[in-house]
Structures are given as C-alpha cells and as structure tokens.
C-alpha cells in the first residue's frame, strides 16, 4: 500500500482556475486549446452507426416477434436476458464508485465519480430496454405495473421477475436523479464560463438558477449524502434481485442460494473494468492527468482485482457444490459447462474474469494499453459468464427428451452490439457536452494553498 499512498490524488500546482480550465474547456471546447477531436468524431460515428443497427434490429423485432432470435424451447432465455444482466452489472460498478466511496469519504472518488455515474446511466438505459424487448409482446410491458384494469388482474408480487421490474425502475430513475443532483453546480460553472449566447442559454436552463450560496451548498450536501446513502444499498439490492431471477427457477445450475452475492461480485467487477476502460484513455485524451492520477488508476485496478478474487470464490463454490452434493442433474449441468456446447463461455469467464486480471498485481504491467486490454477482457468475460449461466442451464435440463440447442442469429448479435453502440453514443455525448469531472468536488479537496483564483 505504501507505493499507492505515495502517488498523490492530485498533482501539485493546481488551483481553482486550472481546474476550471481543464474541465470547462473540454465542454466549451475552444479550438486553440484542445485542437480537433478526431477520436471523438470517430468514436461517435461508430457508436451512432451501431445505434442505427440497434434501431433496425428492434424495429424488425417489433414487426416479426422474438422468433427472429435464436431462442426457442428449451432455451427461451437468450441474449436479451444475458445482455440485460450484463448491462445492469456494468451499471452497478459505477454506482458503487460514486455512492459507496462517497460514504467512505474517499478523496480519490471525486475525480472519477462523474465518469462512473454517467457510464452507469447509459449502461442502465441499455439494460432497461432488454427485458422489454424480450417480452414477446413489448407493447404490453405496462401490465407489469399494478394498475387497475377491467379484468381485475394483478401482477404476481411473489415472483422475482416482478421484483426485478421494480428494482430496475427504481434504479434507473434514482440513478438519473443522483447524477443530476451531482451535476447541478458544475452546470452552473459551465453556464458562467460559456461565451456564446446559445451556450449561456442552454447551460443556464440546465443549471436551474444555481448561485452557489452557502445555503444552497449546505442543502446540496445534505441531499447528496442522503441520496448516496440510499443508492449504495439500492445497487446491492438491484443486482441481488437479478440473481434471484435465476435462483427462483428450479433449473440445475440456477437454483442456488449463493446467486445474489455471486451476481453482485460480478457486477461490481464489470463496472470497475468498464470505468477503467473509460478513465485510462480519457485522462490522456482530455489531458486530465493532473486530476486523474496514477493513484486513481491504481485504486481502480486494486478494487477490480478484489472483485475478481471474490468472483473467483463464487465460481469455485458454484463449480464445487454440484460434486459435493448429491443431485445428479446439478452434476450433469456442471459437466456440460466443462465440456458441453457452451463450454467456451465457461472457460472464457474463468480466464478473462479471474486468471488474466491477476497479471495486474505486477506493477510493471500497469501500462495504459495493458490495463485497457485486460479491462476490456473482463467486460467481455462478464458477458460470457452471463450467457453461460443463461444458456448452459437451459439447453440441457432435467429431461433428455426435451434437450435442445441455442444458436444465436444475426439479430441476436445486432441487438448486443447495437446496445453497446447506443450506450457508447450516449457516453460520447456526455463527454462532449457535460463536465467529465465533478469540478466542485475537486475544488473541495484542493490543498489549502490552492484554494484561490
């Protein structure tokens, strides 16, 4: 830990003005300071193209129905559910960084929480559409709400799938409020720095008349602390409930009491990996090395490794228990996972989420591209884990006579990559139009000698 303590959370020589310049200019973008942003246009163009593919895939799905996907009986849950679990897991990591580490008063959080929260927002949005697409008759999704209807029907409150519906609604809504509350003072900063009338108008409307009076700050601090303390347990509950979606089923490989913590570990792991994947290139591209230092990267890596070890424990338990117990169906499913049709996803999950990330314990390997490569591997590996859990339990269940196959179609893949494009497009817009660092929080952790204009 010594080496980490030595790296500062902010490089010396910063004051209020340098922070505003570094972050404010990234939003208002004077050309002479930042130059052309080819990486932004390139990334945004690709994301928009993928978003187009997503819209196409969804459009065709709405017209033709879920038969365009590879799902069938017995594998009735396919990519949509795996994508959903994967996306909501990625989102969870961002909330953990911004809410949990706010409660622990970790100073390093301040430089990365905005990136993490925004990533959460778009990942949660991508997650939220998946179950609706999966419904078969998406236009009836509102039947999940307990609304009065002529048939006198009520939703089944004892089903984890309905718990999940309430959990997602709450999570997406609360994430937006939490994100906006944290953003408000920074919107005022951008409003006051804007030089064009259009900028002043747009950011002026968004800032809602924030003045930064002490009264407002006090209330803001209270409200933000309250929301953070609600978000932290919320995010754990959300992914626990996602785990219960599976535990609630009787299928071998699903009917397990450890799924809630198992899912939370994986969720936080993928979230940390995604934040690393954003933070490592961004600190260079936006020249934010003074605020997002080696220390942030180190801490994110260490938390990712911690989650990786926790997940390894869950994988180990999940693999071991069928052989420790006496259920031959559980055993058969585990053996299918070792060497069946979907074995690649099982081994990919082990290697990408557990084995390869351990390389980052070596400080010499903590170079930008290595970190990005491994973090990307974790994000991919977590998707492999999700599809492994969904498909490998379903395709060979209790009765050999009802065994089947699952072969994803083009539309499955388009939905997956398209949703990634949609989330990325949103994130690129965030990078372009909103402060990527919580400026007022960084000012708050400035050393006393830097607290001047």
């Amino acid at each position, binding site marked *: 830990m010594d080496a980490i303590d030595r790296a500062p959370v902010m490089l010396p020589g910063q*004051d*209020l*003005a340098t922070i*505003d310049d570094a972050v*404010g200019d990234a939003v208002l973008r004077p050309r002479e300071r930042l130059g052309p942003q080819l990486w932004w246009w390139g990334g945004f163009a690709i994301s928009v193209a993928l978003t187009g593919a997503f819209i196409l895939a969804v459009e065709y799905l709405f017209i033709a129905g879920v038969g365009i996907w590879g799902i069938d009986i017995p594998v009735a849950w396919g990519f949509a559910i795996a994508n959903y679990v994967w996306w909501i897991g990625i989102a969870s990591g961002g909330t953990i960084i911004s809410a949990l580490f706010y409660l622990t008063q970790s100073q390093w959080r301040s430089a990365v929480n905005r990136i993490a929260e925004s990533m959460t927002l778009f990942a949660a949005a991508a997650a939220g559409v998946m179950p609706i697409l999966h419904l078969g008759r998406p236009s009836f999704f509102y039947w999940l709400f*307990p609304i009065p209807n002529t048939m*006198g*029907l*009520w*939703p*089944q*409150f*004892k089903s*984890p799938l309905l*718990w999940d519906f*309430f*959990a997602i*609604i*709450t999570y997406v*809504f*609360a994430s937006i*409020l939490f994100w906006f*509350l944290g953003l408000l*003072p920074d919107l005022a*900063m951008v*409003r*006051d*720095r804007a030089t064009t009338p259009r900028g002043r108008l747009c950011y002026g409307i968004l800032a*809602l*008349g*924030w*003045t*930064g*009076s*002490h*009264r*407002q*700050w*006090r*209330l*803001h*601090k*209270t*409200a933000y602390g*309250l*929301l953070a303390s*609600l*978000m932290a*347990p*919320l995010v754990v*509950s959300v992914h626990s409930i996602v785990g*219960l979606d599976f535990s609630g089923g009787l299928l071998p490989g699903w009917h397990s009491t450890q799924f809630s913590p198992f899912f939370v570990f994986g969720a936080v792991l993928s979230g940390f990996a995604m934040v690393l994947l954003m933070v490592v290139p961004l600190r260079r591209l936006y020249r934010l090395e003074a605020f997002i230092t080696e220390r942030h990267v180190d801490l994110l890596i260490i938390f990712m490794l911690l989650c990786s070890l926790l997940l390894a424990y869950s994988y180990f338990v999940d693999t071991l228990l069928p052989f420790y117990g006496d259920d031959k169906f559980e055993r058969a499913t585990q053996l299918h996972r070792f060497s069946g049709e979907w074995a690649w996803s099982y081994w990919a999950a082990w290697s990408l989420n557990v084995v390869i990330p351990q390389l980052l314990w070596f400080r010499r390997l903590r170079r930008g591209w290595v970190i990005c490569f491994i973090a990307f591997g974790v994000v991919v590996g977590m998707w492999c884990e999700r599809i492994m859990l969904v498909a490998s339990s379903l395709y060979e269940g209790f009765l050999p006579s009802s065994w089947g196959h699952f072969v994803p179609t083009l539309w499955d893949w388009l939905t997956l990559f398209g949703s990634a494009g949609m989330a990325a497009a949103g994130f690129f817009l965030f990078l372009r139009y909103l402060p990527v660092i919580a400026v*007022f*929080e960084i*000012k*708050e952790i400035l050393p*006393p000698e830097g*607290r*001047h*204009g």
Partner: protein
Amino acid sequence: MSGLAAEFAAETLLVSAAERLREAGVRQLEAYTPYPVEKLDEILPRPSNFLPVLVFAAGILGLIGGFLLQWIGAAVAYPLDIGGRPPASWPSFIPIAFEIAVLCAVTAGFVGFFAAARLPQPYQPIAALPDFDRASQDRFFLVIDDADPRFAEADVAAILRGFPCRVVQWQS
C-alpha cells in the same frame, strides 16, 4: 434587498472576513462560493434543514405503502393458489417494498432539495453583481444585507476595508 457585496480571491480571506463580521454581531450574511466551504457552517446563519426527516418519512411511507399494495394485490384482490402456499406470504413482499421505499425516499430527497433551495429560479437578482459569474469558478462573494440591525453600528464597510477585497453596493 440591498447591502454590500465583497469579492475575495481566496477562501481563507472570505472565511476570516465572515468571522470578523460575525464577531461584530452581523447576522444577515450570505456567501457565494465555487465549492462548499465547510468552515462557513459555524459562521453563517444555519437554515433549518428538514431534508433528513423528509427523506426518512418518505421512505417509511413508501415501505408501508409498497407493502400494503402487495398485500392487497396478492391476498385480497387477486389471491392465487400456487401449491397451497398462503396468499399473504409477507417475506416475498420485502424486495418490492424496499424498492418502493427507496424510490420514494430518493424522489423526496431530490424534490425536497429543490424546494428548500428555492430552485429552479430563472432569475437570480444576485447574479447582477459585477463579476458574479466567477462565483462558480474562482471568486468568493460575501453579501451583507443592510437590513441587519447591526449593519450601521458594526460599520461593515470599515471591517471589509481591512481585507483585500472589492466591495460594491448591492441592490436587487
């Protein structure tokens, strides 16, 4: 409202000026800063802060309401017999009751904050102060209302002259 506004270039200057005014008995002070300055908590008047109570109450109401909603749905209005399990099996109502409680608490915290902070506000008179756009960036403003009973007696202007700051008359 009218009074004096002082513009400081550093947090420490603002805090010591506010401290001096407070010692002189001036109460109607407000500071405008680019980030929350914790030292001002003890110096400036403390507004009543009902947010924690509001959020707690909303959370409890959401919890009870969410629980009752499920109870009514599953046990009274639409009981389904699944394997002879009791319709009102309350443990399965906990997750949704918790989610609704959090939803209500977060919404109450958010709405309560904006209500208490009197936002949104399309026009803030204080923003007319010269240089005030830097209050969100790198300047610290201290505004003293001349309605304060000790305003003249304490000689606010003289106290402010003792600090490196720019003082302007302010009127809304």
